[in-house]
């Protein structure tokens, strides 16, 4: 498990049924690209978040495949249709096998 990895997401608390909302996500992760060398000249192995998904009540909103060219502390902004009240589930997959999750609920109102 990479250390100090912390997700952060911004989802409105309420929406009208069928409304489109903007979602912003960030996760603190070094995104070691595999291009850097250490002080002895040895390549530092790649270690990144390689996939990010967002689902709402089990249905997919977006599925992102990340390469090392995504900056440290990967940031994504996208939108979603909110058909009903429910939970957004955010999942980040790390090269090292770790999985990080965050859930945000939204009400209709």
């Amino acid at each position: 498990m990479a250390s100090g990895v912390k997700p952060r997401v911004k989802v409105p608390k309420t929406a009208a049924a069928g409304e489109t909302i903007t979602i912003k996500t960030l996760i603190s992760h070094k995104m070691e690209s595999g291009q850097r060398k250490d002080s002895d000249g040895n390549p530092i192995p790649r270690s990144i978040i390689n996939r990010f998904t967002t689902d709402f009540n089990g249905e997919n909103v977006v599925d992102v495949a990340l390469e090392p060219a995504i900056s440290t502390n990967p940031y994504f902004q996208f939108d979603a249709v909110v058909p009903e009240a429910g939970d957004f589930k955010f999942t980040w997959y790390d090269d090292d096998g770790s999985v990080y999750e965050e859930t945000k609920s939204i009400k209709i109102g």
Partner: protein
Amino acid sequence: MNRPQTLTRAIAFAAAACVAAGANAEPDTDQLVVNEEIEMITEAAAPAHTENLSTVYSGWRFRADETQALQMDDFENPAMIFVEAAAEVWNTADGTKGNSCASCHEDVESLRGVRAVYPKWNEAAGEVRTLEMQINDCRENQMGADKWKYTGGDMTNMTALISSVSRGMPVNVAIDGPAQSMWEQGKELYYTRTGQLELSCANCHEDSYGMMIRADHLSQGQINGFPTYRLKNTKLNSVHARFKGCVRDTRAETFKPGSADFVALELYVASRGNGLSVEGPSVRN
């Protein structure tokens, strides 16, 4: 490494020429409001003791539109995730006395106004203290906890948290009374040329602000925005870490973070920004 005198001078001249030859681009006229709520003063009349400037500008005003936008919203600002991490540490007991920061200070909002007046003279300790020094004093004596590394992640995250609750308030460090001799020491450092490039802070940040150094828009080197998330290293940077880098860039033996020299310099540089709003944690190049 000993270079012949003439070569050193040639380099210094070339460096100065690079700076001078760049386009003279004044800071932009953009306004900074964070979260549509915190109005920031990014331009003020220069304090009386800053004789060679008429106006002081925040570093925010020298950055590209995209960089500026990153600071205008607490979600867009990548530094804020580290402020959140520090908020968790704030509430976590650490050390032999079983205290957390919250045990004495309750909510971090109670420290509103603190960042704006630091570095400052501490009567009981008989010294000028930076925020980092004060935090370590609290940890050691009130919490019985290990001191944090001066420029380490834990410390810089915490200074970012404490700074964030003072955002919008004008910087107002005291330069008189018991702090005066340290302030004068800092002023002397500011104007002393160092390194193989023989550059002082003033050469770039007072004489040449607004010009381009290579493709960088030179700022006045104000620290009202510290700690700052630099795009260059994608992390929070403390004042002394930045000073260390700047001195190293003149090709000099740099000073140590936490040293009296840097504390003096921080007090002086902070005072040059008296009147600008606390922006930390900000976003810079």
